[in-house]
């Protein structure tokens, strides 16, 4: 029965409040921790075997690991329940210490001096304050800012020289590609606030137009072009595709838009897969041209070595970023912000919402198109399975994970999330990599929903949403029903 939609005969308010011992939050917490421990025992346990459904379960529960987890859970529970006050006092002291202002280097000295006995308190606080001090200084000074940008760029340029070829491949084939895609998606989702679950479709369109115009598909193009010349064409194609998708769907609100973009992706994917005469079908298009420059006196061809591709990609990313940073603070960027925060109000104050939403779609799509061209020519082979729906969903999580609307956030978020499965390749059973990725996403969203490096404006919107005034995006009202 539903608790008290209409609560007839209430004996007494006091009786309502009374709970049996097992209903106390303390036991709820223990129960939750035990369940978590059992799940973690499965997460870290044995792999299932063919033909025996319960093999993994039996092994996980017969080994010592499950007891280890249960012990850990109970230990945490005990600490939480019985050393709670102690811990609380400690954290509040650290917080207090960390909260002291740090405007000059001299301010960094702890309030009680560097006494070794109090080290547990001032050490973490000092760390936090130093970080804050340095970031304040760096943020405050123009020179520092440009200097650190240049240093970062320099580091990124030499980075591939310092890692193994395997990581170079990962950096180009996966991190670099998805960074470009995420930058584009950030325009649509982060800035204009439209939920797009089919973004990889544009990536696919870019890759296939590249294959088409370099003569890699079964059909002959009117003229065969160099990969560099294909880029503007691919951008144009994606632009048109973006508008084509955008135009009929502009009336739709958040969730409806999501399913329609998802459907758009599925249709692009199915076309690539089934229109064998044009796209080569599921076997794809092999032996695509690679990037090359021929200026008569000097020529260069990008080959299998991933590094030249990396630098090419980096150049594209930097150019796109420079354009987008300008865009973000221009009239267009402000219009997007207005639409994102309140579409009706934006329209009422004279923002041409249709035009700006279409613009966001088109710009985002074309960035993705560039990525598609580079991808096709780097791998030298494309087929529809490279553009499955799952990637669109993943791309969206990259953007949100990093911090929607914030360019550095999106860059870092994508890099981290693409890097993680590759890193886990050697540390855990490679089959489980995406399980950890999923778990990380959930934990991250619970503890840091604003993302790794959120933009300030976005953070404010989220805070306002938490406090209940306004919603964090133009996707409609926030999920309701939460009364703490």
């Amino acid at each position, binding site marked *: 029965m539903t608790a008290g939609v209409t609560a007839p005969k209430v004996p007494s308010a006091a009786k309502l409040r009374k709970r049996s011992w097992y209903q106390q939050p303390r036991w709820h917490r223990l129960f939750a921790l035990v369940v978590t421990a059992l799940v973690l025992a499965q997460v870290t346990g044995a792999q299932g075997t063919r033909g025996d459904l319960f093999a993994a379960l039996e092994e996980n529960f017969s080994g010592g690991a499950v007891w280890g987890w249960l012990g850990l859970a109970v230990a945490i529970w005990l600490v939480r329940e019985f050393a709670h006050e102690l811990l609380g006092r400690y954290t509040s002291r650290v917080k207090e210490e960390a909260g002291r202002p740090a405007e000059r280097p001299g301010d960094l000295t702890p309030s009680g001096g560097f006494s070794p006995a109090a080290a547990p308190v001032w050490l973490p606080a000092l760390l936090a304050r130093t970080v804050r001090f340095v970031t304040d200084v760096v943020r405050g000074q123009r020179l520092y800012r440009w200097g650190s940008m240049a240093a970062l760029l320099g580091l990124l340029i030499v980075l591939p020289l310092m890692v193994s070829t395997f990581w170079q491949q990962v950096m180009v084939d996966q991190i670099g590609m998805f960074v470009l895609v995420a930058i584009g998606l950030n325009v649509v989702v982060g800035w204009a606030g439209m939920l797009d679950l089919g973004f990889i479709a544009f990536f696919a369109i870019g890759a296939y137009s590249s294959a088409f115009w370099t003569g890699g598909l079964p059909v002959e193009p009117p003229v065969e072009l160099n990969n560099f010349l294909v880029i503007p064409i691919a951008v144009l194609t994606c632009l048109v595709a973006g508008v084509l998708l955008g135009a009929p769907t502009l009336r739709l609100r958040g969730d409806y838009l999501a399913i329609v973009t998802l459907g758009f992706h599925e249709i692009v994917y*199915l076309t690539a897969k089934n229109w064998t005469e044009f796209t080569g079908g599921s076997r794809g298009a092999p032996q695509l041209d690679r990037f090359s420059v021929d200026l008569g006196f000097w020529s260069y061809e990008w080959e299998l070595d991933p590094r030249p591709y990396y630098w090419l990609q980096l150049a594209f990313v930097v150019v796109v970023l420079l354009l987008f940073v300008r865009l973000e603070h221009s009239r267009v960027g402000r219009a997007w912000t207005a639409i994102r925060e309140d579409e009706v109000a934006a329209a009422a104050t004279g923002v041409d919402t249709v035009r700006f939403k279409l613009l966001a779609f088109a710009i985002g799509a074309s960035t993705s198109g560039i990525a598609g061209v580079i991808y096709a020519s780097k791998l030298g082979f494309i087929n529809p399975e490279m553009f499955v729906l799952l990637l669109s969903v993943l791309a969206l999580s990259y953007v949100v994970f990093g911090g929607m609307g914030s360019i550095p956030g999106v860059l870092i978020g994508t890099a981290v999330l693409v890097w993680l499965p590759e890193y886990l390749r050697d540390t855990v059973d490679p089959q489980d990599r995406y399980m950890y*990725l*999923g778990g990380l996403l959930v934990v991250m969203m619970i503890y840091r929903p604003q993302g790794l490096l959120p933009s300030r404006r976005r953070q404010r919107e989220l805070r306002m949403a938490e406090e209940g005034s306004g919603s964090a995006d133009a996707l409609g009202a926030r*999920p309701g029903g939460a*009364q703490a």
Partner: protein
Amino acid sequence: MSLSDIWDVLVLGVVLGSLYAVIAIGYTLVYGVLQLLNFAHSEVFMAGGFGGVIALTIFEPATDPSGLQSALYVLLGILGGALLGGLVAFGLEKGAYRPLRRRHASRLIFLITAIGASFFLYNLAGKMFGRYPMPMPTMYENKQVFEVFGTSVNVTQLLIVVAAVLMLLTVDFVVNRTKMGSGIRAVAQDPEVASLMGVDIDKVVSRTFVLGGVMGGVAGFLFGTNLQVEYTMGFLPGITAFAAAVLGGIGNVRGAMLGGLTLGVVEAFTVEWFGDAWRYAGAFAVLVLVLMFRPTGILGERVGRTA
């Protein structure tokens, strides 16, 4: 195509469509109370499939079951699916969504959490039970039951349609006629006012998840009977059912039923005319067309308003 052909295809469409309808209800109920696209519902569905396999593996079906035994096995499978589906949905709400609700997170955060939970769950299932397809243990001989206009209907098809119709009727009754249903509708209409009126929102949300989860779980079992069970089995039916919920008007229970049936039939005819390869293209084309003219789906949205 002849009339009997049309009947053939229609039967296939209705069978598939009633499964979609049952899954779509899970999406729509949760959307109604939380305005949340519960992407992880496809994993609830997958869990239901495994629940059925597990239940039937424990109580190994006899090789040549009598009619009564068959019915028992089917019931067992349904129970297993419902149990595991409900459990996963319950855990999902408690573990992932409730902490988010407490901090009034935005919908996109919910969506990404759902995506993360979906990745986590299906890979965990793959790890625990193996990453290969497995058949549902045979519960009955799948022979023809009766014929409609020359189209034969077999046991599995009948089972799916009957179970789906029963579940749809139950859900409709629960949402529209019971106290729990009025709680759900109240929360869907206005959570703040509902809580001021004394509705325990946490409980309502939790029960909504369980209700949707049980539906999804049973659908998973039925789907597994019709095809096979695999850790990735949730993704495509999940997406289609999500589309079905949107088509009917997300948040609207009867809309989800209508949307599911429509998409099932559309898919069956797409397969008949254009081949299996274009199955989803037909479904999504219909979806886009409908949404262009009715931006909130066939029956409009929200649990609260239609009931």
